[in-house]
């Protein structure tokens, strides 16, 4: 994580405060850990900032949720049931798997535990995000905004912190709300419209389908630092190897863990 600008400014700020205190003999009060972030002024409310920042996520989610709505109705579920899956689970790959499991008559508990195992990686997101946010940040409403902490929202929030933005629960709500609304509306429209809606527009469909890979790449570039290059390389290599050898789900989980473990190596 490239946090060098924030930290170096913070250190400069602290040094300046210390020198001033020595000069004036005044008492030195502790500088906030993220002094440079605290100084940043906002031109928009954090909620609006979050809504704007989530635009690529919302645009990427809509066609995927649309496909899910179509797939659900084609698998024999009603529009209401498709919507309920999106509303209650809110995790793309799990929902597609849920359709396959439920329509094949898999036992309820087996289906539920399979879906739960798929999303185990999300356990790491909250601590990683709050670590980057810095100590003392409000988490009063985390029980609500954390529901929206999907892969893409996590990536976007982390990228914003790495670029020096101050953590705000309003921003997290903005990011999450827009993405969730897009996911729900996409599901509903897909379930109602059926499969033929985007068939006449393959270029639009392809462009929208590339939105999330493009977002991941842009986010990766935004947080990349020389220190994290081995982490990225290990994560990518393990993802490819495990995906080819076992499955895409295992590839994501093990790739992520292998990259994080690579970060433990002192350099």
């Amino acid at each position, binding site marked *: 994580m490239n946090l060098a600008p924030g930290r170096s400014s913070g250190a400069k700020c602290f040094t300046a405060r210390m020198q001033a205190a020595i000069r004036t003999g005044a008492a030195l009060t502790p500088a906030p850990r993220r002094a440079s972030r605290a100084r940043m002024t906002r031109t928009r409310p954090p909620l609006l900032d979050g809504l704007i920042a989530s635009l690529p996520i919302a645009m990427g989610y809509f066609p995927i949720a649309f496909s899910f709505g179509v797939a659900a109705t084609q698998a024999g579920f009603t529009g209401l049931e498709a919507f309920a899956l999106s509303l209650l689970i809110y995790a793309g790959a799990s929902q597609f798997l849920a359709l396959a499991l439920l329509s094949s008559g898999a036992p*309820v508990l087996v289906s*539920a535990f399979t879906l739960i195992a798929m999303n185990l990686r999300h356990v790491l997101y909250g601590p990683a*995000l709050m670590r*980057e946010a810095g100590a003392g940040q409000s*988490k009063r409403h985390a029980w609500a905004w954390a529901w929206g902490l999907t892969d893409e929202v996590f990536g976007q929030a982390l990228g914003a912190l790495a670029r020096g933005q101050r953590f705000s629960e309003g921003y997290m709500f903005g990011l999450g709300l827009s993405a969730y609304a897009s996911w729900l509306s996409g599901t509903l429209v897909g379930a109602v419209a059926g499969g033929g809606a985007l068939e006449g527009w393959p270029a639009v469909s392809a462009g929208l389908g590339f939105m999330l890979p493009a977002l991941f790449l842009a*986010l990766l570039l935004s947080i990349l630092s020389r220190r994290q290059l081995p982490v990225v390389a290990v994560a990518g290599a393990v993802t490819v190897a495990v995906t080819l050898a076992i499955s895409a789900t295992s590839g994501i989980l093990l*790739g992520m863990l292998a990259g994080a*473990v690579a970060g433990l190596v002192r350099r």
Partner: protein
Amino acid sequence: MNLDLLTVALLAGAANWAFRALPILARTDRLATVGWLERFLSATGPAAIATLFVAAVLPSLSLDLPRLLPLAAGTLAVLALWVLRRSVVLATLGGAVAHGLTVWLLG
């Protein structure tokens, strides 16, 4: 409403909420002051995003030009726009447009 579907959705949804919210509410940031855990969490973000990008493009990586060219055009557009403008939103939208345009040009 299918009762099995509702049960599965409620169980999976409750677990998803727990995975996303409980580690934040449990004040794990205090644990993060432990050296190895701090390095682990610091590497989790880049590792997660790199993994998700690789997993997203992997199915399109083939020697089949109609699949490979849009991916290459979209990826290059993201890289170029990031270098030029340093904007995540612009790079993402530009990449998607380049990808869609290449699909359209290839017919």
